[in-house]
């Protein structure tokens, strides 16, 4: 089996790896780059626990090959907080107890950050539809939705003050 050499960018850092052509991006992140924040809940695109962005587009890393990462820019949960501070979404998720076991949380945070980048003022319905591909078996979703809406509100207020 011929291995493939891939050059890519992960959370702003240039990285390269060698992988089997059948390996998914999720396999590569977890097993070759030791970035275990993205989880494998299903491996079939249904649960969203493996969510990452690729060139700012939200995708399931379990449904993309590692080899397809060549030349792309990937963002995972590991790049969300800085060394100084958590991301505002992370702060709110803790405040609202929007997580219990935490398996779904990296995917949901990455997905909601992508939503707020595209739509800073989503309705509750828009948040729920956006997250339809992120399953959570613990929280019942309500706390997640409220944490997202409250973060969006704070971020809009901050943006207003900055102006």
């Amino acid at each position: 089996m011929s291995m493939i050499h891939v050059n890519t960018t992960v959370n702003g850092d240039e990285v390269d790896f060698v992988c089997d052509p059948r390996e998914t991006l999720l396999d590569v992140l977890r097993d070759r780059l030791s970035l275990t924040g993205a989880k494998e809940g299903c491996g079939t695109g249904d649960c969203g626990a493996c969510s990452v962005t690729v060139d700012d587009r939200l995708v399931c890393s379990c449904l993309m090959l590692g080899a397809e990462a060549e030349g792309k820019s990937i963002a995972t949960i590991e790049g969300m907080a800085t060394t100084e501070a958590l991301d505002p979404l992370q702060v709110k998720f803790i405040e609202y107890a929007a997580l219990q076991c935490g398996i779904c949380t990296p995917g949901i945070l990455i997905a909601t950050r992508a939503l707020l980048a595209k739509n800073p003022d989503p309705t509750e319905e828009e948040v729920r539809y956006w997250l339809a591909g992120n399953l959570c078996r613990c929280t019942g979703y309500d706390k997640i939705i409220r944490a997202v809406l409250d973060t969006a509100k704070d971020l809009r207020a901050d943006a207003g003050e900055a102006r």
Partner: protein
Amino acid sequence: MQYHTPDSFEDAVAIANAATGTTRFLAGGTDVLVQLRADIVTPDDLIDIKHIAGTHDITHNADGSWTIGVAVTGAEMSEHPTLKNDWPGLVEAMDLVGSTQIQGRATLVGNLCNGSPAADSVPAMIAINASIDITNATDTGTATRQVAAADIHTGPGKTSLTKGDVISAVNIPAVQPNSGDAYLRFIPRTEMDIAVVGVAVNLTLEGDTITAAKVVLGAVAPSYVTVTDAANALIGSTLDEAALDALATAASAACNPIDDKRGTIEFRTQVSGVLAKRAAVIAYARAKGANT
């Protein structure tokens, strides 16, 4: 498995024709990777078409028609500023495929070629007379032929594509004045499920009267059904109650569905009629200029 990244359709065709084992093309991979992971299909050759120039483009041509590249995702179709003004039914059908994450990858051509009789974008493509460019080798090089979208799917898991055939574009006709299209599906939940029934309607008006119509059903037979009797029930009418009832009867009569836990034969047959009516009402309003 060999992973290929050709940068032209000529090269993609050459690789496909040289392959001796199982071959798949990789567009968004939302079907291919699921099958790979489940050990249902492990291709010997996997040909990624996304490095070919033009495959990510949505082009509005001078004659009003559209060319959609074979790597264009559902999300890119929904985000396009004007495509949905012309063909809202096509865009809403593709937008129903999967979640936000799936939308970031899934393509029209993948939806068509996977061979499911329940793919959401396919009835919508057939209803608006979309055609597919297929490129393959000839004695002198390569050539591209155009085939109606309706003639690709032939049965569950089956298409009319033969060895070396690579789809190189999706052609969407120019929208006619006073026309509208719509797609509706029934699923047991609100998101993330495969259609139990899907109905696409495309119609054209003169004043209040329907002068042309096409009604296409998905998920109710081994392949997609273009229901001529349903179209005839609409043509010449102003979408009055009698026409709607005749439409529903014709749509239900065209069903030959499977019976499973997600929908019985009776249920699928009845819902086809109900959804055909609702889709016709939306398409009619759009033809009248409604922005719905």
